[in-house]
């Protein structure tokens, strides 16, 4: 069984069904990206894995079923979600945000080490450690969101449109760091992106969603190479 296995996932917002039985998987250490237009259900997929939406279907992480569990308990399986809009705690400092990321850790040494690690990936955060997080720039807040996710020593990281609203250079920098985190920390990643080019460069595999269904899946090379897919779905 794969590290993360999703089988026939359906998701509901009240009476409205957003996902109509999607299935995909992610191998340990791998990066998979979920692509699609607005409203395709990409964010819903991530929220479903985290228990933030009403779902039906099977979600298994490292052999353990996490479908139907509460968000705060799923997090304890070391699944970190970098949400759409970053979810920064804007009224506390950068460092307090990181400390909150470490909420599930017990040992203070682990927490201190974790912070050092995050600062080594994102030196700019170290400069702003005592600044109120709401005053950070968009790119810095995104880094903070990733850093906060890292603090819980995740085995799986879910990222929801990390490139959103960021300047291209910053995005490039961020994606390079994500790649490093993936290889050095052995953090598997499920990446939702609108920016298909970047996502396909980083990821090993890709799934394409359209109105709550998987329409295409394959390795990144296959999908980038296929002209019809690129033109019909990825817009280039």
């Amino acid at each position: 069984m794969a590290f993360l296995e999703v089988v026939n996932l359906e998701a509901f917002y009240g009476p409205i069904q957003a996902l109509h039985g999607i299935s995909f998987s992610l191998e340990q250490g791998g990066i998979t990206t979920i692509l699609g237009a607005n409203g395709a259900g990409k964010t819903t997929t991530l929220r479903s894995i985290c228990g933030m939406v009403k779902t039906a279907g099977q979600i298994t992480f490292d052999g353990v079923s996490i479908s139907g569990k509460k968000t705060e308990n799923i997090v304890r399986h070391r699944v970190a979600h970098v949400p759409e809009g970053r979810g920064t705690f804007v009224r506390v400092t950068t460092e307090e945000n990181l400390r909150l990321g470490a909420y599930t850790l017990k040992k203070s040494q682990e927490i201190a080490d974790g912070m050092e690690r995050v600062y080594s990936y994102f030196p700019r955060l170290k400069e702003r450690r005592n600044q109120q997080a709401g005053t950070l720039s968009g790119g810095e807040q995104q880094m903070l969101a990733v850093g906060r996710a890292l603090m819980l020593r995740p085995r799986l990281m879910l990222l929801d449109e990390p490139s959103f609203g960021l300047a291209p250079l910053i995005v490039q920098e961020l994606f390079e760091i994500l790649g490093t985190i993936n290889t050095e920390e052995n953090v598997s990643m499920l990446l939702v992106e609108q920016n298909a080019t970047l996502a396909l460069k980083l990821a090993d595999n890709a799934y394409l969603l359209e109105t709550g269904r998987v329409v295409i899946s394959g390795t990144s090379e296959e999908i980038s190479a296929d002209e019809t897919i690129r033109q019909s779905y990825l817009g280039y």
Partner: protein
Amino acid sequence: MEELIQQVLGGIATGAIYACIALAVVMIYQAIDHFNFAQGEMAMFSAFLTWQMIDWGANYWVAFFVCIVISFIGGIAIERIVFAPLHNAPVFTHIVVFIALFQIFNAGAGFIWEFTIKEFPSPFPEKLPFDTVLIGPHELGMTLITLIMLGLIFMFFRFTPIGLAMRAAAASPESARLVGISVSWMVALGWGLAAAIGAVGGMMIAPVVYLEPNMMLGILLYGFAGAVVGGLTSPGGAVVGGFLMGVIEPLAGMAIGSGLKLTVALVVIVIILIFKPSGLFGRVVVQRV
């Protein structure tokens, strides 16, 4: 002039109690976006518990701290048993349940301890170590105790991981869940703290207004006024607002007579809610369609 200072200092002392109630109200408001109309009655009930323990022979400070612990647990219990199941219920349901709680504590205290007025002991010495007519020993004592408690609460929120987690849960509940915080238990904790803070307020004011089931209604009103003045989204603001109302009370009394004190609170509440709903220190909440 001396009288003015006396009144203001006395006002600061009662303001300390209003600050307690205001803080408790804001803490619950931040947790669940509702007003605990029963906050005063809970504090009164706690004061009665202390009175009962003392009546059975306990030492004042022992009873004081036991009451705080019982109130803390009681607050958590009320949240878990009554409010957690209702958290998706409409606003009206919440209001009705709070009023029902008011009724239960008010009548419950009357049933257990009767409606006759009782004396509540003050733990502070009869005379101050220094000579002054400006402030009495109990007034000074209750201000100090309240300030110490508020200081401890402030340090709890600022410097402890749980305090940080509670602040995060109140500000951004979804993000809080994503770092593993159980928002629902943070709400319960908030209730426990609010109940404990209210208990301290009740125990400190009881010697002044005498212990009886209806003693807290006017104080609750001033507490609400303090919370509204300070800003319903700001615990620090609530404390400031409480002290402000404490000082406004005697000053208004000197200006328009003491028979209209509750009306003053009513006017303050209505005017602030209409013209500056965010209060002095709060943030404006945008209502989405």
